[in-house]
């Protein structure tokens, strides 16, 4: 019984996106489309354990969803009949809708999936809403799985999804691929959602785990889907490159007891070189499409600099500074500037790095950001100013909610204390 449920779950993960996309082409409402698809899943959970898994489970789900969708559309029209519509006309319309649905589900096209992604990441939604809907509709995750990944109660997550669907429906968000003039902005919204999912997996904002790699894998899967659906968009390749290159370090980023290991201390032989190769290929594709100066492509190029260095000491920090300069030009951000300051510290010495950091310290956006005191503390330590360094690291510890990051900083404190004596 357990096995069959796991099989149904697997079929769902493979088929649900196309199923929902196909229904939404006819219903024009992804909330309703998802409910109808879910109904088909419930039917499968009831019938398959009794009758066995059908020969073609995908087609079975499609048929079940189609039947429910037609029922749903008829119900909608029953209401209209009360408003005095002629029965003949009604029958004709029913047939037309059923035909449309048949056709839609028989050949779900890539555009439907793309429309579904654009709708789930629509700017009318809150960022949390976009993330939840994307994981649910495009990655096929259950509400419980998403809640677990983000360490929020299942009920909260359920409400978040409910509200998001309601917002889409109330705002009459059309189920369509955005027009040319809007496309760029909307692609950006999709990419930022995917990267937020990746980052939540790569450096969990809270909790005991330093990384939640299944979220990284989901984001990578989305990234790989997107390069197929939007092959001409350089930033789509840029984001995939960035995620592949960062994820290639996963095995080296986690010590044997689950502790965090930062880039300079990583055993580089543990990097996944097949993944690096995929990342480099994606970066080359972004550059070939003329997007080398895009936001994600530049970040990927920085990641590539680290990848190329066989040891931390061989890192081309001067080139990294230049790439950060380019990044700051297109999207000025104090966090990017802070990263640049780290690179300056590596290339030109801790004193120059500290100057660069101190120029940022007043930025309101960095207030409460634990990496500011953490970076400052590091540079002060290198300069032998141990008392100040100690204070900064203590401040950083108070600012982070991730236990593994706290551990890492505690370790730093111990080093400082040892150096003082």
């Amino acid at each position, binding site marked *: 019984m357990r*096995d069959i449920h*796991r*099989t149904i*779950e*697997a*079929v769902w*993960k*493979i088929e649900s996106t196309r199923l929902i996309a196909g229904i939404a082409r006819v219903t024009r409402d992804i909330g309703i489309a998802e409910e109808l698809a879910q109904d088909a899943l419930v039917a499968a959970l009831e019938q398959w354990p009794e009758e066995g898994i059908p020969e073609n*489970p995908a087609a079975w789900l499609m048929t079940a969803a189609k039947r429910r969708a037609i029922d749903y559309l008829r119900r909608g029209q029953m209401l209209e009949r009360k408003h005095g519509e002629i029965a003949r006309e009604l029958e004709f319309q029913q047939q037309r809708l059923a035909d449309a649905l048949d056709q839609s589900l028989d050949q779900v096209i*890539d555009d439907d*999936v793309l429309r579904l992604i654009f709708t789930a990441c629509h700017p009318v939604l809150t960022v949390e809403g976009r993330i939840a809907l994307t994981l649910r509709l495009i990655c096929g995750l259950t509400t419980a799985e998403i809640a677990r990944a983000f360490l929020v109660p299942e009920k909260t997550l359920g409400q978040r999804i409910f509200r998001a669907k309601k917002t889409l429906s109330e705002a009459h968000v059309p189920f369509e691929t955005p027009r040319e003039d809007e496309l760029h902005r909307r692609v950006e919204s999709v990419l930022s959602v995917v990267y937020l999912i990746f980052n939540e997996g790569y450096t969990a904002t809270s909790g005991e785990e330093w990384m939640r790699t*299944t979220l990284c*894998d989901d984001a*990578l*899967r*989305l*990234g*790989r*889907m997107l390069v*197929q*659906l939007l092959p001409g968009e350089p930033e789509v390749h840029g984001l995939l490159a960035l995620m592949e290159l960062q994820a290639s370090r996963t*095995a080296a980023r*986690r010590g*044997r007891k689950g502790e965090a290991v930062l880039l300079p201390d990583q*055993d580089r*032989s*543990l990097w996944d*070189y*097949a993944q*690096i*190769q*995929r990342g*480099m290929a994606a*970066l*080359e594709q972004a550059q070939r499409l003329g997007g080398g100066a895009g936001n994600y492509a530049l970040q990927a190029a920085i990641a*590539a600099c680290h*990848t*190329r260095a*066989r040891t931390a000491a061989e890192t081309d920090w001067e080139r990294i500074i230049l790439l950060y300069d380019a990044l700051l030009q297109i999207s000025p951000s104090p966090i990017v500037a802070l990263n640049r300051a780290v690179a300056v510290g590596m290339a030109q010495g801790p004193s120059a790095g500290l100057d660069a950091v101190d120029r940022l310290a007043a930025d309101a956006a960095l207030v409460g950001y634990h990496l500011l005191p953490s970076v400052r503390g590091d540079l002060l330590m290198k300069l032998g100013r141990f008392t100040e360094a100690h204070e900064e690291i203590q401040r950083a510890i108070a600012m982070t909610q991730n236990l593994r990051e706290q551990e890492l900083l505690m370790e730093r404190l111990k080093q400082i204390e040892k150096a003082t004596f």
Partner: protein
Amino acid sequence: MRFMMIVIPKGYESAAPDAVPSAEAVAKMMEYNKSLQKAGVLLALDGLFPPSTGARISYSEGKATVTDGPFAEAKEAIGGYWIIQVRSREEAIEWAKRAPMSNNEIIEVRQIHEMGDFPEDVQQAAEGFESLPNSAAAKA
């Protein structure tokens, strides 16, 4: 989780050195590959020349012996593989079920070891292995 789906085509163990699949079979396979790619699960794939072009190196008492293919005693042979990244063993099996294979052909689904799956002493032994292929990093 990563899985390797290993293709074992019927009769491939005794296929001629220049045996190639038909255009029709290749077209079907391309369609399947495309579906893996669109779903974002495909990491790598390759097809292998028949065993008649290969060699087996067997080891006994510290000595390596080379035998050229075809291998008379072999009952089946690997024709190629996909590497996919999915969330469960069941999902890998579901993908394998969708592959366009002919009668009596086999796909074997096997999970790929990640470093974290090994016991601590094995992980320790693997540490600092410096000679991994670094071609991508060197090239770029």
